[in-house]
């Protein structure tokens, strides 16, 4: 049987304009990588939005898998802009194969 280990999976929803700040923070936390997926539309406190890249109102979802301590370091690092820029962060435990990679 293959072995799995537990890591944190963190997903951050952010304006595309801020994508760079988030991935810089991930790099700073020493995490090995990240993956960006597109988002179409949503609703939050400021109402609905649709993806309107023409207008710079589009968002992306950034996901990264990291050991617990690095994940917490990332959350800590990113917390200030989370509030000021309205990002959305959620994280949970996942099993991964080849845990040495993360």
């Amino acid at each position: 049987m293959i072995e799995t280990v537990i890591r944190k999976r963190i997903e951050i929803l952010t304006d595309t304009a801020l994508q760079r700040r988030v991935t810089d923070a991930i790099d700073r936390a020493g995490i090995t990588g990240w993956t960006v997926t597109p988002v179409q539309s949503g609703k939050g406190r400021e109402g609905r939005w649709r993806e309107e890249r023409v207008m710079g109102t589009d968002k992306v979802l950034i996901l990264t898998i990291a050991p617990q301590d690095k994940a917490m370091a990332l959350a800590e690092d990113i917390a200030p802009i989370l509030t000021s820029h309205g990002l959305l962060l959620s994280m949970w435990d996942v099993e991964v194969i080849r845990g040495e990679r993360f």
Partner: protein
Amino acid sequence: MDAATLETFTSPVILFFVLGMLAAFARSELAVPEALAKGMSLYLMAAIGLKGGVAVSESGVDTTVAHALLAGIGASFLIPLFAFAVLKGFAKLDTLNSGAVAAHYGSVSVVTFVTAVEVYELRGIPPGGFMVAVMAAMETPAILTGLLLARKAIDKTDAKNDQGTGELLHEVFFNASVVLLLGAFAIGMISGASGFSDVEPFFQAGFKGVLCLFLLDMGLIAARRLMDARAMTVRLALVAIFLPLVNGALGTILGSAIGLDVGSAAALGVLCASASYIAVPAAMRLALPQADAGIYLTMSLSVTFPFNILVNIGLIGALASRLAAA
């Protein structure tokens, strides 16, 4: 309504914009895929840049061009001061949002300019090719004024400002539309009319048709945003009509005063009247995330943009003609 205005309203370009707004108000699901809208906007910028560059390669550069550039840059720096005063004084908007909105009105809308060029060409008063360079030059100065006005409202202990400033300045100077407009303009100047003839069927012949579909999409987006608007007030809507009226008139007068031809003076008026809804909102997300995008996007995109397209371009053209006749 005079004959010229009527002609505007029978032009497919304007009618597709109206169709988009009506479809959105009727809550139709009609939508232009985003990749296509983005592509059409690249096409329009490349085409207008090329055409402007070719025109300048023919006409040459003289002091009028330099004057127009200076006038445009000056207007972009100063309009936000005026807009800020109106927003705070009349619309009672707070300092932060007033600064953010003001930046939009100092900057420009490429599609408004492009539509105006089409309308003025129809009326026999085509703007000079160098006005494309003026437009590119006016895109960003307003951002700096707007930020200076808004920053007063921001807590000095706010962290990470330094990172933001570098990013922002870069975004301001290498922003996609500035790079593409000026790049295509330079290509037009280098290739000249002979080089351009090869790509003319694509960039010239297709232009108005693409503009139709793009304005269809803009009509959909503008009207949908208006229906979802929550942070708008009557006073803000009035300001979003008042500013383009006044800025448009002042810009046209300025253009006449510095000796521009009728079409170019009108085009300068349109640039002053128009409000950005691409470059500036993107900069504000980075620099003033606390400002309410619901306010500045709805004002510039859903009120000022349709007002300019449907009414103000016509008024400004009429004013420029009158000034020239006087």
